[in-house]
């Protein structure tokens, strides 16, 4: 069926953990609902990102992946749980206090829409230099300039563009500026929230190759949040699948795509447009997720849409358990 050989299933490299989410949860109070009703955006999640590892985070809209990314980026404070960076729980201090610690520079974010993520009244140089001044406390103009230039060169941004305003740049150039701004402070972890979804396919290719190259050169870890599974497959060595605030499966990329153990992952993978399957009727996942407000703790979240559900799925919430080497799924039937 497929003309080309598959990529080998890589044995996952065991690396020292860089960032760990332990029992991380974010609940939002719901206005106008029952008293005390809370929306479980991220519902007690564990996730480990190793040094130099690229982890993908996928799921439908509303599954909590963006909230998870923002929790790990310390842009929001969790309701409970810990975010451990190199042994220290950085969730203990409030987000505002954290912004003034040196650890802030270790985790940076590349945002989704390059147009929105650049300040229209800042020239590119200032946009990239600002974190240097604030986070690294640099004052020396020549040193700032040297670092900004180096960042520009790393991302392939021509030096003359440094004096331009964002509206004078193309989409791809803006994306590069966003990346330059994030890497100029030399972070250990780069969180990318749908960095290429607003870009044309040809520009996306350039940015993806850039990200891969940067990762190899600078040794950064990535948390890559995306709904485009093919892109995640390209860039990440491990993937976590979220559904209604919980991680339902996590494992090496190829294993997840070739042999998904959770029905939701299987549905996701099966929904990717595939020219080779033209005309074939494939099993489809219809309907919408159940409400994330006060979900029933005794039922699998996916129960209502699952084609394979059995009686126990409605009585006991399946926990994430190992089903294969470094591969875990939260399903009674995995």
């Amino acid at each position, binding site marked *: 069926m497929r003309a080309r050989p598959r990529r080998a299933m890589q044995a996952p490299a065991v690396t020292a953990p860089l960032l760990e989410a332990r029992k991380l949860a974010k609940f939002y109070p719901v206005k106008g609902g029952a008293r005390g009703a809370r929306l479980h955006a991220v519902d007690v999640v564990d996730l480990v990102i190793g040094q130099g590892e690229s982890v993908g985070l996928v799921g439908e809209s509303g599954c909590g992946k963006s909230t998870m990314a923002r929790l790990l980026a310390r842009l929001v404070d969790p309701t409970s749980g810990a975010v451990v960076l190199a042994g220290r729980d950085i969730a203990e201090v409030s987000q505002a206090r954290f*912004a*003034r610690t040196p650890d802030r520079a270790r985790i940076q974010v590349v945002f989704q829409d390059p147009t929105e993520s650049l*300040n229209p*009244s*800042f020239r590119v140089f200032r946009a990239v230099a*600002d974190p240097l001044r604030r986070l690294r406390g640099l004052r020396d103009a020549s040193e700032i300039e040297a670092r900004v230039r180096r960042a520009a060169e790393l991302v392939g941004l021509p030096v003359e563009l440094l004096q331009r305003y964002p509206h004078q740049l193309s989409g791809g150039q803006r994306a590069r500026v966003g990346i330059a*701004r994030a890497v100029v*402070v030399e972070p250990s972890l780069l969180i990318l929230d749908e960095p290429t979804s607003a870009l044309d396919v040809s520009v996306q290719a350039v940015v993806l190759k850039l990200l891969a190259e940067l990762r190899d050169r600078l040794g950064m870890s990535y948390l890559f949040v995306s709904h485009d599974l093919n892109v995640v497959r390209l860039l990440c060595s491990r993937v976590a699948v979220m559904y209604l605030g919980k991680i339902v499966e996590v494992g090496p990329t190829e294993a997840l795509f070739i042999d998904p153990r959770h029905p939701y992952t299987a549905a996701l993978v099966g929904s990717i447009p595939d020219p080779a399957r033209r005309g074939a009727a494939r099993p489809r996942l219809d309907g919408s997720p159940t409400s994330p407000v006060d979900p029933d703790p005794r039922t699998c979240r996916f129960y209502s849409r699952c084609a394979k559900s059995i009686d126990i799925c409605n009585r006991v919430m399946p926990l994430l358990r190992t089903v294969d080497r470094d591969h875990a799924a939260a399903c009674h039937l995995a």
Partner: protein
Amino acid sequence: MSFVTLARNTRYAFGENRLTLIAVAMLGIMVVCAALGPLLAPYDPLMTNAAVKLAPPSAAHWFGTDVLGRDILSRVIVAARLDLGMAVSAVVLSFGAGLALGAAAGYFGGWTDAIVGRVMDTIMAFPLFVLAMGIVAALGNSVLNIIIATMIINLPFYCRFARAEVNVRRELGYVEAARMGGNTALQTLVNHIVPNILPPMMVQASLNMGWAILNAAGLSFIGLGVRPPTPEWGIMVSEGASYIISGEWWAFMFPGAALVAAVFTFNMLGDGLRDLLDPRKRV
């Protein structure tokens, strides 16, 4: 949008719109009058001359004379300084305070927003001109108090606008990036958000100027603030109004026309600025 685009589009927008050009020219004339008033006036605006009282416009007195024989043209020219001065001062103060309060309310939300909101609601609960009258009456009859009164009644306008503009931008990527880049909330607001809301706020300020002039003149018209014999358009209209029936129309008409011209100028300028900044009009 940036000031760069502003400058680039200025030539284009102004070139395209005749009315805006006219408004700019008129603004120029008014500023010159305000700056050089006493030098330009043909007569001493305070000098009375009973012999020529209520004389119609003539070669000697282009705008005629008032009931005390003072040259109306001179008084109109010199009054520009006071009227424009009061309006500009009030607008600048209003703009500054409104920007600060509104931006803080829009960004921080919570109690800040609640308190600022209630204060603005209180101001807006009154018919604004009546409130201004009340403030001047309470604080005392002086030019400074006219400025303060005008500033207070204009405050909600800027405050609401700044709040809305900041609110819209608060969730944008570059604001989050600023926080990620180590900026405190206040630094983010002042250095990253506020520069972006200045252009639209300046449009509002320009449109508001006309209103501020009318307000100041209106207060003087009813006898608050400016005292005779100070030349000021509002007072002049008030004094001249008594003579409409007897047919000496020039006494109120010329200062009135000056007021109309001033308001028209700022409104046209504001429209021109708004066109400049309208993203849909740019290709």
